[in-house]
C-alpha cells in the first residue's frame, strides 16, 4: 500500500506576470484516493496540466516520476500511454456521436484504417458494465444526463488502461445520488488497485473517500493530511485552504419576514421538445418579503425549468397558471415583462446564459437595465461608470478595472457580476439558480452574505441548490421538488438533511409511512 506511484518534485510554473506554482511537491501512493483541494486559483488545475503534459516538459521546472521513472511528457497522448488519464470538469465528449464512437475516439478499434464495429461495441458494453452504466452503446451522448456522461468519460479512461485517474471537479454538476454513485466507483477502483487524484470543492465527499488530502494555497503546497492516521474534520481542511479559521460556513442571519410578495398558482409547464412531458405539475409556491426560500431536489427534478418558466416563459411550452405580485395578478409572459414586474433570474450556467464573456464587466452589469443609465436611447457613460463602480465596491468584485472583460474573471467574481446585473435591475424577487456552483469556500461565504443582505433589505429570494447543507444553512423555508412536483414544504428550523433527502429520493417510502 505504501509504494509510491507518482511523485512530483519542486514543480514551478510561471505565466507572464504570475507564478502559478511555486516549488510544489506532490506524492501519490499506489492504490489510494488522493484529494487535491484549494481555493480557485490555488493552482490545482495548473498542477494537473503539468502532470498530464498539457504544459509540456520544459515549460515548467521540477521533475515528475511515475512508477519510479522520470517522465518528460510532451503532450497529453504521451501521458495517457503510460496510464495517466485526466477527466476535465468540462467533459470532452462529442454530443452527436454514440457512446461507442466516443469511447474509442482517437483510439479506434481498427485495422488498416477500417473500424471493426463489432469489436468496438462489445468492448464498450464490457466497459460500461464496469462503471455500472446500463445504456445501449449506440445511445447518442446528447441524449444522456451529465451524470451518465461522466461515467462514459470514466469508461473511456478504463479503455486506455488507466493506472492513475485524475478527476477535476467530477461532481460539480452532479446531484447527490449521481455523486454518490461516482464516489462508490472510485472506491471500487481503489479495491482494484487503480489510484486516483480527486480535485473537489465538496469537502464532505473529500472527507468520505480520500486516503490523503493535499492542500494547495496560492500556488504552494501547504500540507498533506493522512486521513488513515488522523481523523480530519472539514473545518480542519478549510483552515488549510483559506489560511485562517472560518468560524461559520454560513453567515448568521436574523430574518424579518413580512407579507407574501410573490406567488404562483397552478403552474403547469410542458417540455419544449417532448410535448406531452410535463416538467412542472400544478406547482404552487410563494415567497414572502425578506424571506429566503430554498428549492431542493435532484438534477432534473424540474427546479431550473420551473424558475425559467416563471421568468418570462424563458423555458417550456403550453405554460399555464397565474402569478401574483403583492396579491395582484401580473403578466409575466415575456422576459421583459417579468423584469419590469420585479423578477430576476440568475442562471445556473453563468458562462453560457449569464454573461457576455467577451464584453466588459461594466456592460454586463448594466445589460438588464440600460434604461436606467440612458437618456432617450443614448447611453450616459459617466452614469454607467458611477453605477458599475458602486456595485464593484458593494459586492467586492475583484478586478483590475470595471473595463476588464468578464471572461478573465474567476468563477466567484463572474457570479458577483451576474448578481450585480440583477441587483441593478432592482427586483423584488430574485431567483438564484445554483449561485455557488464551482466557486471556492471564501467566495461562497461572500455570496451568502450578499443574499442575507438582500433579504434584510426586504427582497424575496428563491434559492435553488443541489447542495443540501447550503440550503439548510441559509434558507428560511424549503420546498422539495421531484419530477416536476412540489413534494414537500417545511420551515428550515424543522428540516434536516435526512428529512429532505427522504422527500427527494423515494416516493414509496413516504407513502408507506
Amino acid at each position: 500500500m505504501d509504494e509510491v506511484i507518482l511523485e512530483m518534485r519542486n514543480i514551478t510554473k510561471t505565466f507572464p506576470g504570475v507564478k502559478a506554482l511555486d516549488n510544489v511537491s506532490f506524492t501519490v501512493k499506489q492504490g489510494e484516493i488522493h484529494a487535491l483541494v484549494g481555493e480557485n486559483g490555488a493552482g490545482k488545475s495548473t498542477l494537473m496540466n503539468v502532470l498530464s503534459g498539457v504544459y509540456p516538459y520544459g515549460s515548467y521546472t521540477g521533475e515528475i516520476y511515475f512508477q519510479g521513472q522520470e517522465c518528460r511528457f510532451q503532450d497529453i497522448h504521451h501521458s495517457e500511454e503510460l496510464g495517466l488519464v485526466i477527466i476535465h470538469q468540462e467533459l470532452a465528449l462529442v454530443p452527436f456521436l454514440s457512446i461507442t464512437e466516443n469511447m474509442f475516439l482517437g483510439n479506434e478499434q481498427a485495422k488498416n484504417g477500417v473500424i471493426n464495429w463489432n469489436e468496438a461495441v462489445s468492448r464498450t458494453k464490457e466497459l460500461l458494465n464496469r462503471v455500472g452504466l446500463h445504456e445501449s452503446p449506440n445511445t447518442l451522448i446528447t441524449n444522456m444526463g451529465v451524470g451518465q456522461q461522466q461515467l462514459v468519460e470514466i469508461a473511456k479512461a478504463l479503455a486506455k488502461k488507466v493506472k492513475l485517474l485524475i478527476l477535476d471537479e467530477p461532481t460539480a454538476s452532479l446531484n447527490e445520488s449521481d455523486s454518490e454513485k461516482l464516489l462508490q466507483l472510485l472506491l471500487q477502483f481503489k479495491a482494484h488497485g487503480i489510484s486516483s487524484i480527486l480535485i473537489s470543492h465538496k469537502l464532505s465527499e473529500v472527507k468520505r473517500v480520500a486516503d490523503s488530502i493535499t492542500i494547495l494555497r496560492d500556488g504552494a503546497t501547504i500540507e498533506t493530511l493522512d486521513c488513515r492516521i488522523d481523523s480530519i474534520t472539514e473545518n480542519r481542511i478549510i483552515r488549510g485552504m483559506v489560511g485562517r479559521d472560518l468560524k461559520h460556513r454560513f453567515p448568521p442571519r436574523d430574518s424579518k419576514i413580512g407579507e407574501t410578495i410573490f406567488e404562483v398558482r397552478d403552474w403547469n409547464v410542458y417540455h419544449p421538445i417532448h410535448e406531452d412531458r410535463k416538467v412542472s405539475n400544478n406547482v404552487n409556491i410563494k415567497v414572502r418579503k425578506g424571506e429566503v426560500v430554498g428549492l431542493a431536489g435532484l438534477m432534473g427534478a424540474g427546479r431550473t425549468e420551473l424558475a425559467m418558466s416563471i421568468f418570462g416563459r424563458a423555458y417550456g411550452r403550453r405554460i399555464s397558471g397565474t402569478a401574483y405580485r403583492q396579491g395582484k395578478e401580473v403578466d409575466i409572459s415575456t422576459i421583459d415583462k417579468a423584469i419590469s414586474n420585479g423578477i430576476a433570474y440568475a442562471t445556473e450556467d453563468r458562462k453560457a446564459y449569464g454573461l457576455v464573456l467577451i464584453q466588459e464587466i461594466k456592460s454586463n452589469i448594466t445589460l438588464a437595465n440600460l434604461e436606467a443609465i440612458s437618456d432617450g436611447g443614448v447611453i450616459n457613460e459617466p452614469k454607467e461608470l458611477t453605477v458599475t463602480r458602486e456595485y464593484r465596491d458593494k459586492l467586492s468584485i475583484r478586478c483590475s478595472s470595471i473595463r476588464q472583460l468578464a471572461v478573465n474573471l474567476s468563477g466567484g467574481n463572474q457570479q458577483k457580476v451576474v448578481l450585480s446585473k440583477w441587483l441593478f435591475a432592482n427586483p423584488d424577487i430574485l431567483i438564484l439558480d445554483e449561485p455557488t456552483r464551482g466557486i471556492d469556500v471564501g467566495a461562497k461565504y461572500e455570496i451568502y452574505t450578499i443574499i442575507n443582505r438582500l433579504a434584510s433589505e426586504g427582497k424575496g429570494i428563491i434559492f435553488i441548490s443541489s447542495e443540501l447543507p447550503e440550503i439548510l444553512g441559509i434558507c428560511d423555508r424549503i420546498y422539495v421538488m421531484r419530477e416536476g412536483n412540489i413534494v414537500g414544504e417545511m420551515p428550515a428550523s424543522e428540516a434536516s438533511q435526512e428529512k429532505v433527502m427522504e422527500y427527494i429520493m423515494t416516493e414509496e417510502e413516504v407513502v408507506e409511512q
Partner: protein
Amino acid sequence: MKTLTNDATSNSGTMKTLTTLFRNNIREYGMLIALIAVMVFFQFKTGGILFKPVNITNLVLQNSYVITMALGMLLIIVSGWIDLSVGSVVAMVGALASVLMVKLQVPWGVTVALCLLVGAAIGAFQGYWVAYLKIPAFIVTLAGMLVFRGLTFALLQGESIGPFPTGFQKISSGFIPDVFKYPGFHLTTLLIGIIFSVLLIFLDLRARRNQQKYGFEVTPFYFFIIKNIIITAAVMGLCYLMASYKGLPNVLVLLFVLIAGYAFITTQSVVGRRIYAMGGNEKAARLSGVNTPRLLFYTFVNMGVLAALAGLIVTARLNSATPNAGDGMELDVIAACFIGGASASGGIGTVIGAVVGAFMIGVLNNGMSIIGLGIDWQKVVKGVVLLLAVLFDVYNKNKNA
C-alpha cells in the same frame, strides 16, 4: 494571482505608455498603418496618379456603395450572422428604380422613397426567416441572392435601362454647391473641412475631459496633440484635394452623415449595446430582457434599406440599370468588415474598422486598376489581404490569451 483594484494605474516612462497604447489598440492602428502603407505604395507605383484630386474623387465615388453597405453588414456580422444577398438587392433596386423612372415616368424623388421602402421590405422578409423562423442567415440570404438576382432579370427583361433624370444622377455625380464661386477652387469645401476639423477636436477634447473626470487613464497630452494634428491634416488634405477639383461630392457628404450616425449608434446607444450583447451571447442577452428576435429582425431591415440606398447610388452613378449590377459586391462588403476586425462569431467589430476595411479594398481595386493589373490577379491580391488581416487578428488574440 493578485489583481489590482484601482482603475487608474500611474505610469512610468513615456515609451512604455506609447508601447502599451499601441499594443492595446494594435488592431485599429495596425489597419490604419497598413492602409496608409498601401496608399503610399500605389502613389509611387502609379507615378502620383492615386492622390490626384480627380482620382481621389473617383475613389470615393467608386467605394461609396461598399461603405454604405458595410455599415449595415457590420451590424449583421456583430449580431453573429451574415447577409449574402446584398449584391442582388443592389441590382434589383436599381432595376426597380429604372422601371419606375424610365418606363412609368415616376418622379425621381418618389422613386427613391419607394426603393428605400422596398429595401426595408426585403430586409424584413429575410429578417423574419432568420429571427423568427430560426433559419440560418447563410441559407436565407443565399436563397435571397438567387431570388433577387432572378427578379432583376425579370424586371429588366435582360436589357439595360437608362438614362435617368438629372436630379437622380446628381445623387452620385453631383457636388455640393459653392457659395463663394471662387474660380478654380471650391472654397465652401475648404470651409466645411475647417468646421469639421474644429468639431472633431472639440469632441475629442470633451471625451478626454470626461474620462479624466471619471478617473480613467488617458493618453499623454502630447499624444493627444499629435493624434489631432494627424487627423486634422488628413481631413484638410482631403478637402484641399477635393476643393481643387469640383468640391465635395454629394455622396461623400451622405457617407459622412451615415458613418457618423452608425458610429454613434454602435458606441453610444442602447440599441447598439444590445446588438453587441446579442452577438456576444444571444442567450445571456435574451435572459437579460433583450428582445433578441425583434432586434435581429430590425438589423436585417436596416441592412435592406442600406442595400437599397447603395443600389440607388450605383444606378445613379452608372446612369443605367443592368442585370449584372452589384454582382459579387456582397463579397467586397463582407471582406471590408472582416478586414476591419469584425469577428465571424459575432459580438466584435467597429464601424470605423469596417470603413477602413472598405477603403483598403477600394484603394487596392483603384491602385491595381491604374497600374494595369488584370482582374484575375486583383482577386488573388484581395483574397490574400483578407486572409492576412484575419490571421493578424487571430495571432493577436492568441498572444493576449
